[in-house]
């Protein structure tokens, strides 16, 4: 095996050079997030508010989402910080490491760069070894800077050694996923597949610990994320989970090296499986294509919106203490003597998530523009498909998406409400559906505006995102009393949506919005029929 690692040092220097910008940006953003938020979380809440907040975290839904609550009897700023942050930080750091490792292993091999390197007097394993050493360097820097950075903030419950533990836990987790990615890049012959499987492993580990945290400690310990949470940073400060994970990492690396030494360059242990030779009958029409191109986006976004609804719903169990823990929350949620806090909260959540759901609708319709820009639309329009039919296909899909995402909000909220509330009371599925679906006409007006832009000013379609941003601002910030002039939310369709249960459903208003949407869509379609298709 001697000579297998020949010239690793030179390759490490090469990789570090190529990583100068990319890894530096990743590190800077991560540090800003981790170190910057530490004092904010420390000072934003007083002891009582933190204790109240800890209570809201102690239900199965929140534990599945965020992990077990350690040290809740004396919920310090540190305990809250590691509870609220560690899991998300690990996910971000894992993504960074997966991309880093595959960029310098399988992706280089795919592009033929490795061939040049290997034809020089470098060892068989030198490239993989150099990539792993680079990962060690980057993650060590991250660990050190994170630990020092947090310690320097001088927050009461977050001392030096404990903060170093936090930094090292983050760094070792990152290294673990770099090793996993290096392993997958031996197994699969394409960088894309390797990235996908690594991300899938990350997701799987997250779900494993979610299930484990609710029911089985062993399951959580198998997941590296669950394992690291058992370090109980800023509460008990155990180092053993970090050491165990380091051992696991070494084992994964060893397997990756063994596989690398045994395979031919450019090959994987599992070759790409061939795709379909023929199109299924559902793909054989213009709408079939439109649907196929957006189905994954719509499905994933709906799932995301559902989870968003479900995680807001998970707070409903302790909603009183949660909302009253901060003036800011009270103002955003609003109070009304006729309704419970839960009802007001749900109304606020629906308003907020509907705005997010609107983005899915806009993305669906604007896909047509990127199809034009990328030169794909020409294939369809040069065949027996009229422009009108092509554009209307996108409109229909966007309408379907709008209904889907709104239902996802209602179902998500309902699923959590049933789980955390002994008696959901007025929060029936029917009520929630009604409260979310009343947003549809307003969403359609925004959709219509996008269609009109597509027909009339194709180069300026991005303007719809400006209007979207304005709507978000006017509606969300508008919830705070006396901050914005009253007319501001009147110039966005969302300002006309009845907020159940405080407002009553005004059918005339909904009909007016729907008609406006129809006029906009028809206008857009007419103009689209009159303009050049390639712009």
């Amino acid at each position: 095996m001697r000579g297998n690692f020949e010239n690793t040092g030179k390759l490490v220097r090469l990789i570090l050079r190529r990583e100068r910008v990319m890894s530096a940006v990743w590190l800077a953003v991560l540090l800003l997030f981790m170190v910057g938020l530490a004092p904010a979380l420390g000072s934003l809440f007083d002891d009582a508010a933190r204790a109240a907040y800890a209570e809201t975290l102690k239900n199965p839904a929140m534990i599945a989402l965020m992990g077990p609550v350690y040290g809740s009897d004396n919920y310090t700023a540190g305990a809250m910080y590691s509870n609220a942050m560690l899991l998300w930080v690990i996910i971000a750091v894992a993504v960074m490491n997966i991309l880093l490792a595959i960029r310098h292993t399988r992706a280089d091999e795919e592009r033929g760069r490795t061939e040049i390197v290997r034809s020089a007097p470098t060892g068989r394993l030198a490239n993989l070894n150099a990539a792993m050493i680079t990962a060690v360097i980057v993650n060590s820097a991250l660990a050190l800077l994170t630990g020092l950075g947090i310690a320097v903030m001088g927050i009461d419950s977050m001392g030096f050694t404990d903060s170093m533990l936090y930094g090292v836990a983050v760094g070792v987790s990152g290294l673990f996923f770099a090793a996993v990615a290096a392993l997958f890049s031996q197994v699969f012959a394409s960088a894309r597949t390797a990235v996908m499987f690594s991300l899938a492993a990350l997701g799987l580990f997250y779900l494993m610990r979610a299930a484990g945290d609710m029911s089985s400690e062993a399951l959580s310990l198998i997941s590296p994320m669950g394992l690291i949470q058992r370090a109980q940073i800023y509460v008990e400060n155990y180092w053993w989970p970090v050491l165990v994970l380091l051992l696991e990492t070494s084992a994964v690396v060893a397997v990756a090296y063994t596989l690398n030494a045994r395979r031919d360059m450019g090959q994987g242990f599992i070759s790409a499986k061939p795709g379909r030779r023929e199109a299924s009958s559902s793909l054989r029409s213009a709408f079939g294509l439109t649907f196929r191109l957006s189905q994954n986006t719509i499905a994933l976004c709906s799932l995301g919106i559902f989870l968003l609804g479900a995680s807001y719903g998970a707070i409903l169990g302790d909603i009183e203490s949660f909302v009253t823990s901060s003036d800011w929350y009270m103002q955003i949620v609003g109070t009304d003597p006729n309704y419970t806090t839960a009802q007001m909260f749900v109304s606020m959540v629906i308003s907020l998530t509907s705005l997010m759901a609107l983005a899915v609708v806009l993305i669906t319709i604007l896909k047509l523009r990127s199809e034009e820009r990328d030169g794909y639309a020409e294939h369809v329009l040069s065949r027996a498909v009229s422009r009108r039919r092509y554009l209307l296909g996108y409109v229909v899909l966007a309408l379907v998406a709008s209904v889907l995402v709104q239902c996802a909000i209602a179902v998500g909220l309902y699923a959590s409400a049933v789980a955390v509330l002994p008696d959901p009371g007025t929060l029936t599925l029917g009520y929630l559906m009604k409260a979310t679906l009343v947003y549809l006409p307003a969403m359609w007006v925004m959709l219509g505006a996008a269609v009109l832009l597509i027909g009339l000013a194709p180069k300026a379609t991005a303007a719809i995102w400006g209007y979207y941003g304005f709507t978000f601002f006017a509606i969300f910030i508008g919830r705070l009393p006396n901050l914005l002039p009253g007319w501001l939310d009147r110039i966005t369709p969302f300002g006309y949506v009845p907020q159940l249960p405080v407002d009553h459903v005004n059918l005339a208003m909904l009909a007016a919005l729907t008609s406006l949407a129809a006029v906009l869509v028809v206008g857009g379609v007419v103009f689209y029929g009159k303009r050049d298709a390639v712009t």
Partner: protein
Amino acid sequence: MPALSLETVKLTKRFGRFTALNGIDLKVNEGEVFGYIGPNGAGKTTTIRVLLGIIQASEGSAQVFGMDAWKDAVEIHKRVAYVPGDVSLWPNLTGGEVIDLFVSLRGKLDRTRREKLLKMFDLDPSKKCRSYSKGNRQKVALVAAFASDADLYILDEPTSGLDPIMGQVFQEYVLEQKNNGKGIFLSSHILSEVERLCDRVGIIRDGKLVETGTLSQLRHLTRFSMSVETENPIEGLEGMRGVYGISSERGGVSFQVDSAEIGSVVAHISRFKVVKLESMPPTLEDLFMRHYNVRGGT
């Protein structure tokens, strides 16, 4: 007179201030193979896009099968198969899926023909388009076009990414379609291909059609290359009309001569006891070059 498959009258297309096409008058007969040649940026693709109703003429008219290219686009497309010049394909669909989709968007799929074409062009339809090279993406578009039953094939530089063997396969297939009475509008700057396949050609330059006609018609406009060896040294060639570029080689001379003057030049030369005479007809390349002044022409 045969029916026209394509006709443009004073076709002009402007992009903002830029005039991409300037008064193009084209007539292509049904069942004819028409070569549309010109360098990059001449306006070939723009012309084709107007003919397909993807973009609209600024002035003038464009008709296909007697129908308006813009208003009756869908009806026209039912009879036309098109291969774009720059084939970009959805990275996450396979070649086979794209072929089936393209054919279905026009009409019915002929499975045996599809399989035959896949074999001819040596294309693996189970790969994602992401992994195809330019040539392979072009093959996908070609298979999709030829697998559909069309009356007119509009091909925009279809072989620019193919290797020579595949270029040959392509040419054979086009000849086969021609024999079946199909019309073909072939934009290209591969002149040997145009020379072999086309009944007539049009040369476009900077948005203007500078020449159209059959190859033999166009050849009259240009010069033959000749090289001669004689027993006695040739005299008096310099003064003759229509003779250019005389250069002496060992034992002989070579020069170019206008097609119209060949008779008198040959008569003159024969007085010096010809040992060897070679004459090369003008190639399309010469024609082309003359229009682009790459080599010192008229």
